[in-house]
């Protein structure tokens, strides 16, 4: 789909011939994220759909206790130091951002009075600034009013390098400024198509200025409110034991009428995912459990006659196989897989294409992941039913054999193909995790039929995913021919997600292997497309750019996408808790309720 076609489709939405949802689904099918599609519509002048949040209770409170289970407990409750989702979720009970992301990728105002757009004058046409109007009459849990000063303070707090906040990436290159008591302006150094990052979602939670002002910079650890949060959220702080329990009670002055429903909230941490699933789905001891990294077979068994269900929601996370572009077996200037080398086998496009034909994604989905891993041909977040034509996948051993044969890879006596004395032997690495080992076996089997010999290697997850510069087995060093893991899409915008194929992100010794381009693939066209997308303010053109980037990656078989990994949570049958893949599990906590 090119730019003109996209414009036509948007015109149809404007005219009412195509529904917003239909449009978003179409874009998702093209490899775009739902939020981006929604932003496209917003900037093209189609009014933002007002997300309808179903809520039946007619009064505040009276819902009893809400008990939720996080098998990794929150360890701290300051959103600016929240390392993982467990901490972000714990903080989100008390703190709120200006806006949250709903499942379709629309912004939903929380502490903002409205979502900025070009139409309401909030969004500057040049993309260099955005003005947020804040909701009036919001109170902190201690009774102090919430104002623009608080929002601006969060920027100062997070952007200060001495604070070493985890959110600093979101705030360090922007500027926040108070316009009046309930208006703030965020300015960007350059046109920023994805303006909804600061003060939005998990990195946008606002902490109160009056309690943190004295603890900016190096003293940030000493703030008493780190452990006793005072926020604006639906529940007030009661007690916190790091790693074990977060207790909260209803906020009687919450800024949304008739909400929240529950009188108390308990967030219990610790244990393991399977027993957490059991406690919600099978026994109903708890109402909700987070991040069900449990095999689908077990989930299904628990669901039979159980008291709860598994909620499965597709996001942008993708389990994929990376092919190394550099030579992992030759050391140059103290590093293997150096960008100065070329992979002896995988630089042959025929080998790459053959490998792409040897990954049996259907079997992987069917036999390993079930509902929790959807076979896909796209790298950029696409559910299988919307897979675009140019990114089709297939399992075809004959075709793989033909391609290799045609490229001059001849089978030897041992059944392994070779060319110019180089044997088609690949080392295939991943982390130790039973579904991954099964996946490895499926690929290895198919590869053997095509005369490719694979040696399987698995590394303990804590080593594989570490950033330890001294360890040769980390995934960023990529000292093997191919490797497999899940890359997560944490942001509802593909820019950050797609930068992992740009040439300036190549992981190397010089950047301590912190570069995001692990495959070390370099392509001028891709770089150009990415640079263009970075500053392209026209969302339609920008969308087309990302689609092209996705297709380039797939065409060149830079990676082989295997399955998209949805977010899975366990929910008590009567609990109403809509999830969103683009935000915290608690993005909509104030609207949670239990049916009688």
């Amino acid at each position: 789909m090119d730019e003109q076609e996209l414009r036509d489709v948007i015109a149809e939405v404007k005219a009412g011939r195509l529904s917003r949802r239909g449009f978003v689904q179409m874009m998702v099918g093209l490899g775009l994220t739902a939020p981006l599609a929604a932003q496209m519509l917003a900037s093209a002048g189609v009014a933002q759909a007002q997300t309808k949040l179903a809520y039946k209770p007619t009064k505040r409170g009276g819902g009893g206790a809400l008990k939720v289970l996080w098998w990794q407990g929150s360890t701290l409750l300051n959103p600016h130091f929240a390392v993982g989702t467990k901490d972000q979720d714990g903080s989100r009970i008390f703190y709120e951002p200006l806006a949250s992301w709903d499942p379709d990728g629309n912004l939903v105002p929380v502490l903002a009075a409205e979502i900025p757009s070009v139409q309401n004058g909030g969004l500057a046409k040049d993309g260099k600034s955005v003005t947020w109007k804040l909701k009036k009459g919001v109170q902190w849990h201690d009774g102090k009013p919430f104002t623009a000063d608080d929002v601006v303070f969060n920027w100062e707090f997070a952007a200060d390098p001495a604070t070493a906040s985890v959110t600093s990436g979101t705030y360090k290159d922007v500027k926040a400024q108070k316009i009046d008591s309930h208006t703030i302006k965020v300015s960007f150094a350059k046109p920023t198509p994805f303006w909804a990052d600061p003060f939005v979602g998990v990195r946008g939670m606002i902490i109160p200025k009056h309690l943190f002002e004295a603890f900016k910079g190096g003293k940030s650890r000493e703030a008493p409110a780190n452990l006793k949060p005072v926020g604006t959220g639906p529940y007030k702080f009661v007690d916190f034991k790091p790693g074990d329990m977060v207790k909260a009670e209803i906020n009687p002055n919450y800024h949304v009428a008739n909400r929240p429903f529950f009188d108390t909230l308990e967030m219990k941490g610790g244990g393991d995912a399977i027993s957490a699933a059991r406690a919600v789905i099978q026994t109903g001891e708890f109402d909700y459990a987070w991040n069900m990294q449990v095999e689908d077979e077990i989930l299904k068994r628990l669901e039979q006659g159980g008291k709860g269900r598994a909620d499965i929601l597709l996001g942008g996370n993708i389990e994929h196989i990376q092919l190394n572009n550099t030579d992992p077996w030759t050391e140059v200037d103290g590093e293997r897989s150096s960008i100065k080398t070329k992979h002896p086998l995988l630089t042959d496009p025929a080998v790459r294409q053959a490998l792409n034909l040897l990954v049996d994604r259907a079997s992987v989905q069917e036999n390993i992941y079930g509902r929790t891993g959807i076979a896909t041909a796209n790298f950029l977040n696409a559910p299988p039913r919307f897979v675009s034509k140019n990114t089709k996948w297939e399992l075809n051993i004959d075709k793989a054999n033909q391609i290799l044969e045609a490229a001059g890879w001849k089978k030897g006596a041992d059944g392994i193909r070779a060319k110019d004395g180089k044997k088609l032997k690949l080392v295939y690495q991943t982390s130790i995790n039973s579904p991954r080992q099964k996946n490895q076996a499926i690929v290895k089997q198919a590869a053997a039929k095509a005369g490719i010999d694979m040696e399987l290697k698995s590394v303990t997850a804590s080593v594989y995913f570490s950033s330890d510069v001294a360890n040769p087995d980390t995934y960023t060093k990529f000292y093997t021919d191919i490797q497999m893991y899940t890359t997560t899409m944490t942001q509802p915008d593909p820019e950050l997600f797609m930068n992992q194929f740009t040439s300036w992100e190549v992981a190397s010794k010089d950047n301590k292997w912190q570069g995001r381009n692990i495959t070390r693939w370099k392509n001028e066209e891709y770089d150009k497309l990415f640079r263009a997308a970075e500053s392209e303010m026209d969302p339609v053109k920008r969308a087309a750019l990302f689609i092209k980037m996705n297709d380039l990656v797939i065409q060149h078989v830079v990676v082989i996408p295997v399955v998209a990994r949805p977010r899975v949570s366990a929910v008590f049958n009567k609990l109403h808790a809509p999830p969103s893949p683009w935000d915290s599990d608690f993005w909509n906590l104030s609207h949670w309720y239990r049916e009688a």
Partner: protein
Amino acid sequence: MSKYLVRRLLISIPALLGISLVLFTVLALAPGDPFEELATNPNVPAEVRANLRTQFGLDDPIAVRYVRWVAAMAKGDWGFSFTSRVDVSTLIMQRLPTTLFVLGTAQLLGLLVALPVGIYSAVRPYSIFDQIATTFAFIGFSLPTFFTGLLFILLFSIYLDWLPFIYRADISATGWRWMWEMARQAIMPIAVLGLFQGASMTRFVRSAVLEVVQLDYVNTARSKGLSERVTILKHVVRNALIPVVTLVALQIPGIFTGAVITEQIFRVPGIGSLLISAILSNDTPVIMSITFVFSALVVFFNLIADVVYGWLDPRISLR
């Protein structure tokens, strides 16, 4: 006596230093770092991690870090957790009561089972009671706690639906209701641990009593007309218990540091689960404190056991 105590205490200082040095070095050399999760998160710039590492002093050489840690420890400062940024002493104090309650009760339960069963078995060796007790003891200590724990959960929580299998340290109820809830949730972890302890201790008590019960003075006691009850309780058990007391004393440090596996299965928020999550997240200050406190307790209770030995059996003199 006091001279002996002082000498033993002085000897324990280099021993503890040695232990701490080994622990610290092993932890420092182990792969992974506390800010791993940040490294894989594309939203977090690399500088943040570098900044945190400097702020928490992780970039200094191991020797410097070790000396700094020893100096702080000597002043009673246990440092703060890298993941929660809370003082380690606070974290430990939050969890100590739960661990003491669960493990202390389990230990008590173990003794309550082991003493009568062990003594009775020894007094009537190879009787039917002894055979049955022995069989159960073998089953008991050959089944690991993670297995019996899961078995209990399956039976009592899933099939029968009698007991909750998620332990909550602070139950929001008072009075009898609190007691009831507490008992319901604590009974499984305590039983799992207690019966495991009890099984091995039963064998220990049995063999200790069996050794004494054959001695001549026991026959003397019987022949001078003492009742069987008095003979056993006053003359046999008292002497036989010396090794048992030592064993119990040496198990006390374990009560403070928790039971890693059982705490994980039942989600008991004790020291053991704190330790395991700290290990998983490479939270060095917490691991160091817990393991160091454990080794200090082992050294200390060894000393106590020796002292108690001398007190129970005057023939052993402490010099």
